[in-house]
């Protein structure tokens, strides 16, 4: 009884204090809203400009408003063959980008999981040493080794192939590192229980380690897919046939090819293609977001 009385008399006070606190939340939120507006504004401008025809952009630059060319521009961007040879449309580039992104992500995950598995579970000589060797390749990103990489791919005749596009980028020190840390946190007893249950190395990997790592795999997949999708330098080097172009490299190509012929570049279509390029990574992050957070913060044990 006594406590309920005191809490009742305290109530208005607490409420008043709460109202004061609310000012802070207002400030917090305005900062956040301002920040996201700032981040979203260029995207918004791009979307809006993509509804104008090329002349509007050539005359007045980016547009803040809405025009009637939206569907036409997107239609063109996706389905109208363009480019120097006139053989490539947006859909081809989209599928090329998807193949690159998926191949890149899946390949990286498979390779780095297997590498981490070997390093953590098989006590071969120099295991730690080889891990650090792998780790130091972080110091050698593609940009540093681009000439030798190109030489190798070119001498194998792999230019303008998906293999040439994906394989040189697949080895991943980051992936190996993350999976190594994760595998090391898997209790030793689980391995032993599996050994007693008659699971060999391959069975243990497939039946136990892979299912345990699924949130981790999802997180890696998102990072790697977006990373692969956004590759620009390597596809530019390795693909010379327009049929192999990815979206990221195709945007520039659309604008450039028209510039060369002294016409006004198809800015509206270019903007539309930019938006199309952004969509798949955004969708993947949106759909896998909860997995992503889970994979990086908690382990399923």
């Amino acid at each position, binding site marked *: 009884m006594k406590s309920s009385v005191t809490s009742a008399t305290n109530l208005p006070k607490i409420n008043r204090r709460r109202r004061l606190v609310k000012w802070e939340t207002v400030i917090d939120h305005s900062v956040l809203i301002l920040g996201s507006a700032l981040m979203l504004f260029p995207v918004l401008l791009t979307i809006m400009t993509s509804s104008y025809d090329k002349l509007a952009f050539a005359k007045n630059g980016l547009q803040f408003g809405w025009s009637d060319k939206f569907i036409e521009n997107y239609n063109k961007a996706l389905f109208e063959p363009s480019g120097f040879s006139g053989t490539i449309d947006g859909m081809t580039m989209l599928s090329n980008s998807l193949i690159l992104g998926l191949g890149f992500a899946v390949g990286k995950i498979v390779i780095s999981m297997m590498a981490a598995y070997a390093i953590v579970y098989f006590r071969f000589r120099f295991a730690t040493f080889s891990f650090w060797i792998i780790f130091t390749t972080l110091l050698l990103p593609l940009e540093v080794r681009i000439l030798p990489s190109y030489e190798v791919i070119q001498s194998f005749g792999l230019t303008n192939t998906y293999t040439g596009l994906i394989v040189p980028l697949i080895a991943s020190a980051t992936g190996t590192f993350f999976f190594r840390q994760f595998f090391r946190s898997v209790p030793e007893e689980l391995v032993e229980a599996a*050994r007693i249950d*008659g699971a060999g190395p391959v069975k243990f990997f497939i039946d*136990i380690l892979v299912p345990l790592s699924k949130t981790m795999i999802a997180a890696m997949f998102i990072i790697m897919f977006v990373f692969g999708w956004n590759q620009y330098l390597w596809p530019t080097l390795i693909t010379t046939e327009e049929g192999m172009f990815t979206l990221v490299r195709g945007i520039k190509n659309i604008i450039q090819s028209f510039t060369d012929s002294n016409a006004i570049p198809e800015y509206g279509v270019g903007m539309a293609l930019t938006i199309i390029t952004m969509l798949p990574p955004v969708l993947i992050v949106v759909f896998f977001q909860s997995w992503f957070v889970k994979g990086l913060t908690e382990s399923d044990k």
Partner: protein
Amino acid sequence: MAHVSLKALEKIYPNGYHAVHGTDLEIQDGEFIVLVGPSGCGKSTLLRMIAGLEDITSGDLEIGDRWVNDLDPADRDIAMVFQNYALYPHMTVYNNMAYGLRNRKISKEDIDAAVRGAADMLNLNDYLDRRPSQLSGGQRQRVAMGRAIVREPALFLFDEPLSNLDAKLRNQMRIEIRNLQKKLGTTSVYVTHDQVEAMTMADRIVVLNAGQIEQIGTPAEIYHQPASVFVASFMGAPPMNMLEATLNGAGAIEVAGLGAIGALNSTPYSGPVKVGIRPEKVKLSNRQEGDNQPFIHEFTEELGAARLVHGRLGDMPFVVNLHQEDMIPEGALFASLPVETLHVFEADTGKRVAV
């Protein structure tokens, strides 16, 4: 169902650490053996050597009549229950139990029958579709047991399976495990550092210290006839009181700083000894009589069924365990140490002196 024999088993780690010294042990068919000792005594290593999770440096290990030194754990016909249960977190209870059988290419029907049989025995029927994370500690422990049972192995190995449970559950699971083992009649080796588990569960206890067997015996033998100072002070709570003393050739015991406390019937041994007496064998009175010794009372621990009277005998710490009905006498206290309840050990080797 099988007997197990360890012959001169040795374990030396690559870094030179000698974890297990030549260990001989014959385990009878259906026997429940408890390996007990302080942490680092090599008991877990020994168990893991039997399981095949650690290599055997030298010696022979036989399970049934098979020499299994070089066999993989999966081929040794054993099942193991781990301290942290080691359940597969992504599998249901059913699959956790079935996994080992599936790997052995047993037919679906047989697996189903085995798993349901084990679940019946362990009261896990309602939980077969759950994940380990949705179970309580005791239930997880049961699943771990179930995983061992379904295989119908020749030998169960337990590696401190109860130490992650709270005290109440531990008592309950202790009884459950023991009953289950009796029902199945499977030979078992159980590692623990908890002497209560050792005493209550074992057919025979193996006391290990620093990689060596100190004593093998039934719980009663271990308690009443400890073979060494180590066993005497390790088994029993509160531990046995130990007094520095000398034994002269005639069997008279002279405690340092106290004087004679009695004489043994006959023993050829003479020299420095350690004399032990269980706290519950000591009698307290407020009259000096016979060979009893002045006892300096310091404090008392009330346990309900008993009370522990802590104090000193001469300058040595000494504990007396009084039954709840026995009051602490008034006035100056004297402790009498009945000669027939004394344990005498050689001071330098720690070995029991035959009386």
